[in-house]
């Protein structure tokens, strides 16, 4: 009798019902984290590509070093360096209590910084690809009409490059939804982390993991659908 119950772990998803709010909270944290990462990553990526394209040699070098180092080292390592390494030499992201105990925590904010800096390097490469894909005749046509370099970028090159880059950016967002799960290892209360909480309280391992898998899959499926809708819409002129 004793041995029997030990062998047969009963799978019971009804135990999970009262944890639904926790799963929802975790899901929101994951989505917010991924969104902030990609938005900040876009800004960093844009800065990096501008520096890469500038005529100032120092900027070129900084941008090149940034994209190469970030893309050549694991994201988990980068997160650890930001969270545990840099504070040792006096660099740390402060907590912002007014944002609440989750979003204002040092861990969450550091995760945003680390992931955004990581994402920025990949987005920089995405943008480079997008800009390079525009025929150089477009720049010449713009300039020959009397537009400045910047105006040509604004009215002619970037609107076209966005159409090329947008699917990649959506993809980066989807990647971030999944990849951001590593922040659970440093105690950020994301969807992955909820499994720890639920497991500790219910001693169930299987159910929370499956629920989390379903949530991740639902998130990425929805985003993929939205992405292909956008892509189809952008193709009208081609």
């Amino acid at each position, binding site marked *: 009798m004793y041995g029997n119950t030990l062998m047969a772990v009963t799978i019971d998803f009804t135990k999970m019902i009262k944890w639904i709010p926790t799963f929802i909270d975790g899901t929101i944290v994951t989505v917010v984290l991924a969104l902030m990462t990609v938005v900040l990553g876009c800004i960093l990526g844009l800065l990096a590509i501008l520096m890469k394209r500038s005529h100032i040699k120092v900027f070129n070098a900084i941008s090149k070093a940034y994209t190469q180092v970030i893309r050549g080292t694991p994201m988990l390592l980068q997160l650890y360096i930001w969270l545990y390494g840099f504070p040792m030499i006096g660099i740390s992201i402060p907590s912002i209590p007014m944002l609440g105990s989750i979003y204002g925590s040092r861990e969450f904010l550091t995760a945003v910084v680390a992931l955004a800096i990581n994402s920025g390097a990949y987005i920089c490469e995405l943008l480079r690809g997008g800009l390079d894909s525009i025929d150089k005749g477009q720049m010449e046509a713009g300039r020959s*009409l*009397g537009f*400045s370099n910047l105006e040509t970028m604004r009215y002619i090159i970037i609107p076209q490059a966005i159409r090329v880059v947008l699917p990649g950016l959506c993809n980066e967002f989807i990647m971030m939804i999944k990849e951001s799960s590593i922040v659970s290892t440093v105690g950020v209360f994301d969807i992955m982390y909820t499994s720890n909480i639920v497991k500790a309280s219910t001693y169930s391992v299987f159910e929370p993991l499956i629920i989390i898998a379903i949530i991740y899959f639902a998130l990425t499926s929805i985003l993929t659908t939205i992405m292909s809708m956008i892509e189809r819409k952008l193709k009208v002129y081609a």
Partner: protein
Amino acid sequence: MLKTVDLYKSFGDLEVLKGVNTEINKGEVVAIIGPSGSGKSTFIRCLNLLEEPTKGKVFFKETEITSKDKKEVDIDKVREHIGMVFQHFNLFPHMSVLDNLTLAPIKIKGMSEQDAKKQAIELLKKVGLEEKKDAYPNNLSGGQKQRVAIARSLAMNPEVMLFDEPTSALDPEMVKEVLNVIKSLAQSKMTIVIVTHEMGFAKEVADRVMFMDEGIIMEEGTPDEIFNHPKNQRTKEFLDKVM
């Protein structure tokens, strides 16, 4: 209208232009012919500084546009007055034909949207493509694209038009419709510089034909002088090959 003094241009070690001196007068139609690699395209692209000359000067009217003094020359302002049509059209594929024609007048000249549209439709009528105003460039044939590109340049009301091999990327049956548009421009006294392989067109429409080879103007003169009585041996050899 346009003048070049001792124009040199190198790409790395390759010297493409080796001292070009010429002047293009108001209302003149100048056709530039010559073998490929002779520097024709580089020369015409130097006239609006799409290529920066390595040495020498380019004047637009009284202004030296190659001047390094940025206060004196705003190249963007100068280019408003110099239209350019490219071999590969370079229409803006993300905009309708109408928007291709109105973008620059609205953004650069500050023309009202209404006026710009009215002008665009007039120009499209002129090139025979009024019914294509809402089409996108990718739905047009090569000849139509090039006619739209000409109209787009004209929308800035330029004082001179540069054509860089405007029919070289076209299917043979579309060459004529584009040449006819350029011809009617020539008849309206527009100043035109055209790099072309269409000898018949050069003969018929140009006031002056320039034969370029090895980075210099080998010979220039009226179409009759160049095509019927060429003096330079290279000119003769070239014309023998192409005509």
